[in-house]
């Protein structure tokens, strides 16, 4: 169960020969996998490829009909290890994850599979979280391709090209016994376009056939002496086989190679942006009729030496458009030209920039520099200067940042006010954070947490701080991170080393930050899941002795647990499990139920919080401690007061954290909870009638006095 339902998109996967699929890039990948006769699929979610995993999770029926096995892997290492099935059998397999974080986790398994080589085609789809909007450190997947010898595809960002490269990727993998990576940039994952579809193909060789007649090739096991043999195979057989396949199937493209004596080499994924930049400089048009020859590399590793030599030789100069650093491709081409003694100058990072996303603006500048130097008359359009008179600083002061924060009603939120209140008692704390929604607590208004080191690595990253001290170090990890690897890396490590610190596991029932996918401890009902593991039991199983489970919305419980953990004499890790269901998922789960109840005219109580505008004095302590998106401000209705008052908007789901915070921090008496009773019972109505009559009577007497003096 993910944040979005893909029931509609799943239907698109059924489209057959000659039909049109209107959808996102990532859906084209999904469809192309089924058109390629894939036998098994695995992966771990994360932007920008979460949708791929979610679509497959919702497509059980189609996958079953085709005989395709799908797994939502526990982490990227599990997904990569799954590819071992293609070493001995002609099974096509595909896995997907967010890169480079996922590739880091998977790299052990990937290296071994790449060494053994594959019989069935293997495709690793990596969602490159690079450039604007990225949530991770900025690195290149390219390095993994080089070190383990995996081929790296970078398709042009059109749905047809993407699908074509998926299909060709499997064939390339089989032709060269090498796993193939296909990288998808964020914008390409989300690009909406049209794909001409083909029929889905059931796997030629099935998983049952493999189990019926298991095969064993001893030379595919990565132990000596075969590992030495694998290294030779990579260079002597697989590499040449790959370059031959790439050339014969024209995976890389030459465009207008006869139009002059300059040349531009571009990674496939950057093709559209490059063409637009050239359009702006006046050396191409919207149809891609470039005035300068292009070599578009849809395979960025390995380089096809013959193609590059053919393109570079006899040209006056070459411009390479390679995004990201280090400049692996540029270095390789330089080496190649040097070795063949070709004197054509090669430009690249010197004319663009070493680091950062290659935006259209940046590319246009680089192209202009290149053409100014070698062929000024090719520039036929002037650059657009930024409009004069823009006072950026004046506008910047008017445009506040919107850092990512926790959602309305988020069960992770209430823990952070508790931690802030504990800091008031014990002083500032060393807090090691993890990957997950709770990472956003590092931003305003909580500003908690010193480091984020990786998914499930929160507790381990606090290891050095886990020494006896009157202020114990705190580490925080979500349940997503816990199951991703935190149970071993974090908890196992803390138990073995008797860490004297506090570890907090926030249990919201889903891998929430990636879109709300299932994890072993998910509690909500689902058809397919028989295991619902308790995190507390898992912790005891791992040997933790001191465990407190608190209900997240009850801030006082968190406060008590933290206080106790801070002062207890217990040696060894102090575990606090903060329990509360992810509100996004909860709302999606209960909304249809509520709707049904209301439709049947059954009694239903809706809860909502509010702030009394006339008792609120507008100091906004509540906002600083709660940070809820539904708790905001508005104009003060009192003409004497100038500061805006706090207010709760209607998106409130009634989680009660603002009220709890006001209580726990002794803030102010302005918060109220309103229960709105729909379809009240007869008893409700009678009791209300009696109460209201008496209350109105009393209210009216005071009303009359005030009336007397009012004007």
């Amino acid at each position: 169960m993910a944040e979005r339902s893909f029931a509609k998109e799943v239907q698109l996967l059924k489209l057959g020969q000659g039909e049109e699929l209107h959808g996102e890039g990532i859906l084209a990948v999904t469809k192309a996998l089924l058109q390629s006769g894939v036998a098994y699929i695995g992966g771990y979610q994360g932007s920008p490829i979460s949708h791929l995993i979610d679509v497959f999770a919702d497509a059980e029926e189609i996958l079953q009909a085709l005989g395709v096995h799908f797994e939502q892997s526990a982490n990227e290492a599990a997904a990569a290890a799954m590819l071992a099935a293609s070493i001995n059998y002609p099974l096509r397999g595909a896995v997907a994850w967010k890169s480079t974080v996922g590739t880091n986790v998977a790299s052990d398994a990937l290296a071994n599979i790449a060494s053994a080589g594959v019989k069935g085609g293997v495709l690793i789809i990596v969602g490159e979280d690079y450039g604007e909007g990225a949530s991770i450190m900025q690195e290149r997947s390219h390095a993994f391709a080089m070190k383990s010898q995996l081929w790296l595809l970078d398709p042009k960002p059109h749905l047809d090209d993407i699908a074509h490269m998926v299909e060709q990727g499997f064939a390339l993998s089989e032709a060269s016994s090498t796993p193939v990576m296909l990288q998808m940039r964020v914008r390409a994952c989300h690009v909406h376009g049209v794909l001409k579809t083909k029929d889905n193909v059931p796997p030629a060789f099935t998983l049952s056939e493999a189990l019926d007649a298991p095969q064993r090739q001893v030379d595919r096991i990565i132990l000596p002496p075969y590992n030495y043999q694998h290294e030779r195979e990579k260079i002597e057989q697989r590499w040449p086989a790959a370059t031959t396949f790439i050339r014969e199937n024209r995976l890389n493209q030459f465009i207008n190679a006869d139009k002059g004596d300059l040349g531009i080499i571009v990674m496939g994924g950057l093709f559209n942006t490059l063409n637009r930049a050239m359009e702006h400089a006046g050396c191409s048009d919207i149809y891609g009729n470039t005035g300068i020859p292009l070599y578009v590399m849809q395979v960025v590793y390995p380089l096809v030496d013959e193609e590059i030599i053919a393109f570079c030789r006899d040209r006056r100069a070459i411009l390479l458009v390679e995004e990201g650093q280090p400049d692996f491709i540029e270095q390789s081409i330089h080496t190649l030209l040097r070795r063949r003694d070709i004197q054509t100058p090669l430009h690249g990072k010197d004319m663009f920039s070493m680091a950062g996303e290659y935006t259209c603006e940046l590319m246009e500048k680089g192209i202009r520099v290149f053409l100014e130097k070698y062929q000024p008359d090719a520039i036929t359009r002037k650059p657009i200067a930024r409009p004069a008179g823009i006072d950026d600083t004046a506008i910047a002061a008017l445009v506040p940042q919107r850092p990512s924060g926790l959602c309305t009603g988020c069960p992770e939120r209430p823990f952070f006010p508790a931690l802030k209140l504990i800091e008031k008692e014990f002083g500032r704390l060393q807090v090691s954070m993890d990957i997950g929604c709770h990472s956003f607590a590092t931003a305003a208004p909580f500003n908690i947490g010193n480091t984020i080191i990786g998914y499930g690595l929160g507790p381990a990253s606090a290891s050095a701080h886990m020494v006896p001290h009157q202020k114990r170090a705190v580490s925080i990890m979500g349940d997503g991170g816990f199951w991703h690897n935190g149970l071993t890396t974090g908890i196992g490590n803390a138990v073995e080393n008797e860490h004297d610190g506090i570890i907090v596991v926030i249990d919201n029932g889903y891998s929430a930050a990636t879109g709300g996918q299932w994890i072993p401890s998910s509690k909500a009902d689902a058809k397919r899941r028989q295991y619902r593991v308790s995190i507390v039991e898992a912790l005891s199983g791992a040997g933790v002795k001191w465990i407190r489970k608190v209900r997240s919305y009850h801030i006082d419980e968190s406060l008590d647990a933290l206080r106790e953990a801070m002062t207890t004499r217990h040696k060894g890790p102090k575990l606090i499990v903060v329990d509360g269901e992810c509100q996004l998922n909860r709302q999606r789960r209960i909304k249809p139920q509520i709707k049904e109840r209301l439709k049947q005219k059954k009694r239903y109580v809706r809860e909502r919080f509010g702030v009394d505008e006339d008792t609120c004095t507008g100091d906004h302590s509540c906002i600083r401690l709660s940070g809820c998106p539904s708790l905001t401000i508005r104009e003060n209705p009192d003409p004497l007061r100038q500061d805006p008052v706090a207010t709760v908007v209607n998106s409130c789901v009634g989680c009660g954290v603002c009220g709890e915070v006001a209580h726990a921090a002794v803030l102010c008496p302005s918060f109220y909870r309103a229960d709105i009773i729909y379809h009240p019972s007869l008893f409700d109505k009678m009791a209300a009638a009696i109460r209201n009559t008496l209350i109105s009577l009393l209210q009216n007497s005071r009303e009359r006095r005030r009336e007397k003096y009012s004007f």
Partner: protein
Amino acid sequence: MAALNEQEEAIKIAVLAMGGQGGAVLCNWIIQTAERCHCYAQSTSVPGVAQRTGATIYYIEIFPHSNRNDSKPMLALMPVPGRVDMVVAGELVESGRAILRGLVTPERTTTIVSTHRDYAIAEKSSPGDGRIDSDQLLEQAEKHSKVLIGFDMARLAEENDSVISSVLLGSIAAAGVLPFEKTAFEAVITDSGIAVEANLKGFNAGYRQARQHDFKEEGLEKTDRPKANNTQVTTLLARVDSSYPSECRTIVVHALRKLLDYQDLPYAQDYLAHLDTVLTRDTAEKGYRLTTTVARYLALWMSYEDSIRIADLKTRSSRFARVRKEVQSDDDQILRIHDYLHPRPEEICDTLPAALGSWCLKNRFCRRVLGHFCKNGKKITTTRLSGFLLLYSLAGLRRFRRMTLRHKVEMTALRQWLVTIDTVAMDNYALAVEVAECQRLVKGYGETHKRGMNNFNTLMQMVDKLCADNNAADTIRELREAALADETGGEWQQQSNNTS
């Protein structure tokens, strides 16, 4: 060089939407309208972690089907500064963000913006008023755009029981940047089969409003003062009219209304008596700044929030009605209100007669008993008889308020403040105004109130020392602003130490 088609260019649209505004739906509508009208259309977005409370930028390119051998256009995936035809912003600050990114240019860009505000966390969490100046931003947006269509689309959507995305689509249709008929947009909404009626209503409302071209909203309304019911009140108001200059009158009248509501007629008369003294120190050439300022803060101080006041406000019928409206409850539904109250021993003692109150505060046994009672917050159901009666009787203590400990403490400090203003005003008018403004520091309840009061006292002590200094007014203003902006007080304490 080959002949290149300079003029053939895609229509470029950037959509900046907040989470939950239906940005993806809006883009789908635009794409579908374009495809229906025989255009190539491509959209993409960079959501990243923006799904959690941030803003997402969607980018759309639209290009008519070509006559040239069915050549397909190469559409790009990111907006380029200076080359965007239409910017659609679901919220005012997001249009500012588009300007900062260079996407809005006077030669080219039509900006469609909903002028409502969804406050950013920095604006919300400021201890004072951290909001940016909306008018200034709108002015900038107008200056940078070729055409600006801006009005409160969130409100229009709400008024039409619709969603903001449909109002935005209506404005886009009206803007005329896209070469599509209004009916094409409507057909797409209808064909989607989802919430068709509501979406069409929002769409048409947006379309109409955007076509009106008069986007400036009405200025503040002039209010005529209604007649008072009570002759003594009438006399009081007449006195304001006769002895106060017009600059101060509005605020004094607001103040009297508040104090009559807070306590009683003599209390309001006291207020005016205090203010009369201040007025004697003031002159027309200073614009009566001192009187106006004191008029505001004196009223706020005199209506300090004690438990009697809270109980009074919580039990009013007007409050019950307001809550019902705020939580959008119909009259046939039953409403229960639970109030979150957390009195400390101090608040309880404050409400006692002064002597008893201060004895209780000092007595260890008393404090312990009260401390135990106050350990946890109380949730009182004000719509239930027991809860209502408790608060109602507490509110009834209003007539004994002048005897309470809190009143004594507040009035002592207040008189001291007035004396300081009076003394300072003789030689340093500007400083006196700043001293008056310092009351703004005192607000909130419990710890917040205590911290504010401490800050206030620190400043007051400084006033005595600074009095002779020429820059005293500026120093006090800077320190006050620092204290208001800094909750923990670390930075401003340092500043004030440096000064003293």
